[in-house]
């Protein structure tokens, strides 16, 4: 039995029962509307991608991907966007690696345990309140918290007792906050969709709760968790305010200190999104065509990262009813 047949109704059989035509006018309109909505989605996505491709194509060359951005008044002399590219990849990976486990952990706790009840409610509300906060507010808050001297190991110490307050670490941590509500929401729905009798069966076989979660529930809700992580990652990739305030939006990635990996994480940088923001008409407007080329590359990266997430969370899980 193929995967499709498990969710779709057996159309062959229904189609042949032609006693009375069961499609009313309202249903036909609904069907047409559903088709329309689906096609519309594809068209919009295609339009956005094509627009950026067309606008940026004259500057889109492989060389752009591998050269550093330079200060310059002229678009042709301002280099490529290697540093923002690295910044996007690094920041997205860091923030997603924080948001995914934390988000799934919170979702599991809310669904499976959730005691005391007032705490569970508070956590739920807290996460949803963060979802509604503009990212600039979170960025300013992050700057305030991480400028305290005790956090200077995350960036560096500017003057004694005052941490610089900006780095990949810090930006990654605050970025994970904006992805968190999406991961928690989608994971919770996925966990909820596993029926009660599955858990009961597992307990009846003698497994304790945590093993049930690890071995039965999480693998079954893999697809929903994947959705949440993909949505959260989308939010991370598309954010500008946190990068500008907490990463500095420097032209080139600026490692802090001598150790290669750690120094990079403690240093400042920029992402493709801020590169697009700065060079487009919204910011200083220096290199608009390159901004569009960068946006196109950004979309390709998003497709790639989504593909990776799909690989990791592949499988639609078992079906619970036969």
């Amino acid at each position: 039995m193929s995967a499709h047949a498990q969710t779709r109704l057996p159309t062959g059989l229904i189609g042949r029962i032609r006693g009375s035509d069961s499609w009313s006018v309202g249903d036909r309109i609904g069907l047409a509307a559903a088709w329309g909505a689906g096609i519309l989605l594809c068209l919009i996505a295609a339009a956005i991608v094509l627009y950026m491709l067309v606008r940026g194509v004259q500057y889109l060359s492989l060389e752009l991907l591998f050269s550093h951005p330079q200060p310059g008044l002229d678009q042709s002399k301002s280099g490529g966007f290697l540093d923002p590219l690295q910044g996007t990849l690094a920041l997205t990976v860091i923030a997603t690696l924080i948001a995914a486990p934390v988000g799934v952990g919170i979702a599991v706790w809310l669904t499976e345990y959730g005691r005391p009840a007032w705490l569970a409610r508070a956590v739920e509300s807290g996460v949803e309140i963060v979802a509604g906060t503009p990212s600039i507010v979170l960025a300013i808050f992050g700057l305030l918290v991480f400028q305290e001297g005790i956090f200077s190991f995350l960036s560096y110490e500017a003057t004694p007792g005052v941490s610089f307050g900006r780095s990949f670490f810090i930006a990654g941590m605050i970025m994970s906050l904006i992805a968190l509500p999406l991961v928690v929401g989608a994971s919770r729905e996925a966990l909820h969709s596993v029926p009660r009798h599955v858990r009961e069966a597992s307990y009846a076989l003698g497994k304790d709760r945590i093993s049930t979660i690890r071995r039965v529930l999480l693998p079954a809700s893999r697809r929903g968790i994947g959705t949440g992580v993909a949505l959260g990652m989308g939010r991370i990739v598309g954010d500008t305010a946190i990068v500008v305030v907490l990463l500095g939006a420097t032209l080139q990635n600026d490692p802090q200190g001598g150790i290669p990996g750690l120094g990079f994480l403690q240093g400042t940088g920029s992402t493709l999104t801020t590169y697009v923001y700065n060079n487009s008409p919204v910011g200083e407007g220096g290199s608009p065509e390159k901004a569009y080329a960068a946006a196109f590359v950004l979309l390709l990266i998003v497709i790639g990262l989504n593909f990776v997430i799909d690989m990791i969370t592949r499988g639609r899980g078992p079906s619970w009813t036969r």
Partner: protein
Amino acid sequence: MAARGPQTAQQRDRTDQRAEFLLGALASAVLVLIAFMIAFVFAKAWPSFAHNGLDWFGAGGNVDEQLTGIFNSPADPSDYVYTLHAWPLIYGTALITGAAVLLGTLVSLLSAMFIVEFAPGWIRAILQPVVRLLAAVPSVIYGLIGIIVLVPFFGNHVIGPARKESVQYVIQLDGSSILVGTLVLTVMITPIMIAITVDALRSVPRNWTEGAAALGVNRFRALRTVGLRAARPAIVAAAILATARALGEAIMLSMVTGSVAFAPNPLDGVTFFFEPTRTLAAQIVEGAEGLSVKPFGQTMYAFAALLLISSAFLSFGGWLARRSMRKYTLAPR
């Protein structure tokens, strides 16, 4: 987890307790951080509310003039200016967010049904990456496409000169409007709802929809009456996340809604859709340049505080809605 041997009940309890404690600690730590942020915003915002009282939420005067007055406050803290009547911003936010969520819910339900039931295999295979791609396009890009394509289209080709003249002493209709803002915002928030609704529809027990089909109901109706109803808690959860996203969207809306502190008037008829406005989040982003001027910064935080309160109400509303829907699913709680 190879042969651990059968656990005693006591061992099971202990590992369970430990796990519950650890997960609970994780959730509480995140909660503490979030609570800290909320306290920070409210502490900073308090002076603005205190000086204005309930008038803060009312209408009266021009918001931009009031903000300029606040920005140019004298140096002495006791002379700080705080006067503000923020109704146009509140109304604009409610209008655009509400419209986008309603439109988005409709489109996402239809799209989700399409993806789950009616789309041919190859379309379905492209649609999932497409939905995730749309959720990841930066808001700057949406804003750019809005101001480069949509706003001039409406301003130069749809809104006629006569309409512009009819309101010219109050506002200008240059194309950036609540209509464009709502359309682009809908495109931004719909992918979130589609992704979660599709997952929910797919996990509806098959024999429920098959039962409906066996009674002679057509595919669309079976999905609509049985599938959507079973997935209602998830749809509500998705709508909450989408509304929260819409509330927090700043950059795109500040570019595309004209950014005029004006409360659009529904009694204007068709012109209502072309009138500009400004949302709370867009105001914060535009005022971010002046945060270090104390009273101005506190006013911006007051806007943020209002957004946080709205999100809290939203969260509460969602909880109430989902609680009443639980009995229709097989879910544990």
